[in-house]
């Protein structure tokens, strides 16, 4: 629990400073996240990313003190997210809206950003359409098509998979993942031999895995939400003997996050995933980030939410520096467009046209390194854009 006390101490110091520096102009950032409910972990990890950035870079930018106001949506409730955004704008008079782990949260708040002309930094919500909902939205995470379209192409062209079966969670992101992977894969020449959707709330995967086994495909592509499900599906696959190299397993990165690898054990070896952030990537910036993050969070490792929050804060800080502290939404959005930097995830930039991220997608394979299972990068696909923007969806 040392991370907790540390965080509390940091928070306490923050409070003390804010009291001392009350004369100084403050700039408020309203952070809307699911701090409670079934997605509380996403909220907590993303918030930890925000806290770490502020701990490392101070809470003062361009002569202004940054104050974070946190609001809890309790889950994917657009009505609550919209209300919180409205309240942040009218009651707390925030200058920037941020957070948004879940797509419904971001979609709910988008109108408020437009109407109030506030910069809205989406730090996770990964449905492609989010940034099109308001000209004030900038996203620092990923889009599901961005990762999986590229992954589908790669799977056919580079890994030599000709036929694949898709198994995705039956909700928005799952549908997006299925269609974009299939699109990339079939455009390159591959063939989808079967497709199933698993209920989001009812995670016993054995029946679906058996269906995959019945079809005995060359490869199976998986998309499921993080949390408990990656380990569960991993084990179900292993029980059926559906493991690499006999059957190739392709998935978006959630499947092989550290906790899942720990409970899957050796059967996870050889699983290939695509992601925009790789915890184990050997890079000084990343190593430092991971170490600092673990120190601040009781040993817990950062994940996609953490890096989204971390880079989101970076974007806010850098944009404010550019505008010299002018927090007007239009100025900040202009400043954010085209901004590029090197993040712990690698090089990334904001597409000036779509306000979405352009970044490297990493193809990783689970391997044993020094007796521990890790995602080892086998290929980097640089400068990947979301393939859907600009298309009628």
């Amino acid at each position: 629990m040392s991370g907790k006390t540390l965080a509390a101490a940091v928070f306490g110091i923050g409070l003390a400073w804010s009291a001392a520096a009350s004369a100084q102009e403050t700039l408020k950032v309203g952070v809307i996240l699911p701090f409670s409910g079934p997605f509380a972990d996403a909220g907590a990890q993303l918030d930890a990313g925000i806290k770490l950035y502020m701990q490392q870079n101070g809470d003062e930018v361009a002569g202004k003190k940054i104050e974070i106001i946190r609001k809890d949506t309790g889950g994917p409730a657009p009505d609550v997210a919209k209300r919180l955004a409205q309240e942040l704008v009218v009651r707390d008079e925030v200058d920037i809206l941020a957070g948004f782990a879940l797509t419904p949260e971001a979609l709910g708040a988008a109108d408020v950003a437009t109407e109030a002309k506030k910069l809205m930094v989406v730090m996770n919500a990964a449905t492609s359409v989010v940034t099109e909902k308001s000209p004030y939205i900038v996203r620092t995470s990923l889009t599901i098509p961005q990762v999986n379209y590229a992954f589908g192409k790669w799977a056919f062209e580079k890994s030599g998979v000709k036929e694949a079966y898709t198994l995705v969670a039956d909700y928005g992101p799952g549908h997006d993942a299925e269609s974009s992977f299939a699109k990339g894969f079939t455009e390159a020449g591959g063939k989808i031999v079967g497709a199933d959707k698993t209920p989001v709330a009812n995670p016993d995967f054995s029946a679906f895995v058996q269906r995959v086994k019945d079809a005995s495909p060359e490869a199976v592509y998986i998309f499921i939400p993080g949390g408990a499900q990656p380990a569960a599906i991993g084990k179900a696959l292993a029980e059926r003997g559906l493991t690499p190299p006999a059957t190739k397993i392709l998935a978006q990165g959630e499947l092989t996050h550290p906790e899942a690898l720990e409970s899957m054990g050796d059967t996870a070896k050889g699983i290939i995933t695509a992601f925009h952030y790789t915890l184990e990537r050997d890079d000084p910036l990343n190593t430092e980030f991971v170490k600092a993050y673990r120190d601040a969070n009781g040993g817990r490792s950062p994940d996609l939410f953490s890096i989204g929050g971390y880079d989101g804060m970076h974007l806010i800080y850098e944009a404010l520096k550019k505008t010299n502290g002018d927090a007007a939404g239009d100025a900040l959005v202009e400043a954010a467009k085209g901004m590029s930097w090197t993040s712990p995830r690698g090089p990334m930039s904001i597409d000036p046209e779509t306000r979405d991220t352009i970044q490297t997608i990493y193809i990783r394979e689970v391997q044993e390194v020094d007796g521990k299972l890790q995602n080892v990068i086998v290929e980097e696909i640089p400068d990947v854009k979301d393939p859907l923007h600009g298309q009628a969806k």
Partner: protein
Amino acid sequence: MSEIARNSPDPRLWLKQRSRWSIVEIAFWLAALLPFFLFPAYLTLASQIAIAALFAVSVDLVLGYAGIVTLGHAMFFGLGAYAAGLISKAGWGEPLSGLVMAGVFAGLVGYVASFIIVRVQHLALIMITLGLGILSYELANAMSWLTGGTDGLQGVDTWPLFGAFEFDLWGKTAYSYALAGLFIGVMVCRRMVHSSFGLALRGIRENVRRMPAIGSDYRAHLQTVYAISAAIAGAAGALLTQTTDTVSLDVLSFQRSADVVVMLILGGTGRLYGGIVGAIIFLVARDQLAGINPQYWYFWIGVLLMVVVLVMPSGILGGLARLAGKRD
């Protein structure tokens, strides 16, 4: 109350008196206008409280008055919300007519569902309401081509109220609209509760076994009240859609069904205003506690619920009524 009874031999007068407006009631509705002046920055919250309160009142009709314990009423809230959203998406964004259509739609579905509901009791009833609620959620998820799935319905655009009042960022229009909706809803329920139908519902709740023995086809009453309750729940859902221009699967969730029952019991069942008081206390406490600590607020909500049960077993309104020394 008993004094009135002794002094007044006229039972009709006594019955009339029971349905008369009390000062507390009038004061309550006047106080409902205070947020416009005292808390102008809280109007959006107030509008969502009013909507939750209307939803709780609809549940009170079936749970508090007719004794149907339901854990699936979000089904009708959600149906109303989606109906309003889809009507608006189809190009008709006029709020009042959309509200009525959504309410009628939810009421019709409620009537159909009531054929099942009135034939079971106790745990089976609770579980069937819960099952139907979850089925409607899963159905909406499966029909994501229509509902937009977990991402929510896109393209909802509600026109200004009466063609003049935009739904503004401060929530003035939203609160006015939601409060008016709540007021009308409560007035409808109030009228119903104080009719012979309301009396029959109380009879059902008090002793369902006796009802047939006084010649009552009580299942028909239950079906009526279930349909009306569904319609009001649907109207509450439609209000949420129209004041926020958003709908997602969340409106159909088990969580919402459970929350509304918690609010209602918290405030006190069978009192019409219990649901409103419960919604106010639950949501204000939630907002304030989450403001202090967004991660652990529900610890204190849990403590609040437990303490209320131990200290005020008939809900907050029941407890207040007892404190005020009168038995309702």
